[in-house]
């Protein structure tokens, strides 16, 4: 990559389904525009690169004011899912399934496959050392595309001149 190549760095700090896809979609779009892409996974964002977790990310209806009945196929924009219904067993699984179905219908690949596309396209993935230590993980718990486990300071060094996007 030449000196004049635009650089973007994404920090993924959340592990819910709806917070994983923005980085994947934008990172993929950036690669498609010839941009140099680095992604740093920290705190719950580590779930996106954990072998055992990445295809089990979820979205919960509880505490999510944007999730309305329309997600369930009822066309009433402002009718919410009552919190008391949201806490019922299986509601998180149901909401997750509905979102995954919608993504699949749009031709969006599952998280693991999407992330591998980014790696194949040249995106550089790093895991946050503090978070990895806090969760008691090892390098082998993470997908192969992860280059290294690094400190926040290392990340700041390696993304000099990059546009940083925190998710």
């Amino acid at each position, binding site marked *: 990559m030449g000196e004049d190549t635009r650089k973007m760095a994404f920090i993924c700090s959340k592990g819910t389904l709806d917070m994983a896809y923005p980085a994947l979609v934008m990172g*993929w779009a950036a690669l*498609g525009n010839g941009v140099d892409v680095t992604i740093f996974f920290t705190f719950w964002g580590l779930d996106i690169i954990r072998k055992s977790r990445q295809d089990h990310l979820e979205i919960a209806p509880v505490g999510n004011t944007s999730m309305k009945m329309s997600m369930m196929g009822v066309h009433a924009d402002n009718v919410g899912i009552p919190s008391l219904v949201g806490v019922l067993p299986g509601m998180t699984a149901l909401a997750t399934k509905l979102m995954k179905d919608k993504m699949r219908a749009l031709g*969006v690949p599952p998280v693991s496959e999407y992330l591998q*596309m980014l790696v*194949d*396209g040249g995106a550089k993935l790093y895991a946050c050392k503090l978070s990895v230590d806090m969760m008691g993980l090892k390098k082998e718990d993470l997908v192969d595309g992860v280059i290294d486990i690094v400190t926040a300071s290392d990340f700041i060094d390696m993304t000099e001149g990059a546009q940083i996007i925190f998710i």
Partner: protein
Amino acid sequence: MIRSIAGQAVHVNEEGFLTALDEWNKDIAAEIAKEEGIAELTPAHWKVIEWCRAHAVNGRSPTLRQITEGTGISTKEMFALFPKGPAKKVARIAGLGKPEGCV
């Protein structure tokens, strides 16, 4: 606007994509490829270019994922053949419009 590529006057948009499918030919493709930093178009390049021309919708080139799924050529290979933004580069070289879509 009109510009001359490989000795032929062709219609292009502000981003340099050809706008008329029938104005394209292989010499034009080779010339645009050079502009995009690809010195020579190999049979592997042509396979992708021809597939995209055959699968364009409303003159727009397919997205990268559509190309990899449709041709069996891997993402890695696509980035090696057309470095820095494969789908957009193929679209320009193939005389098609920019692909539309997020995957």
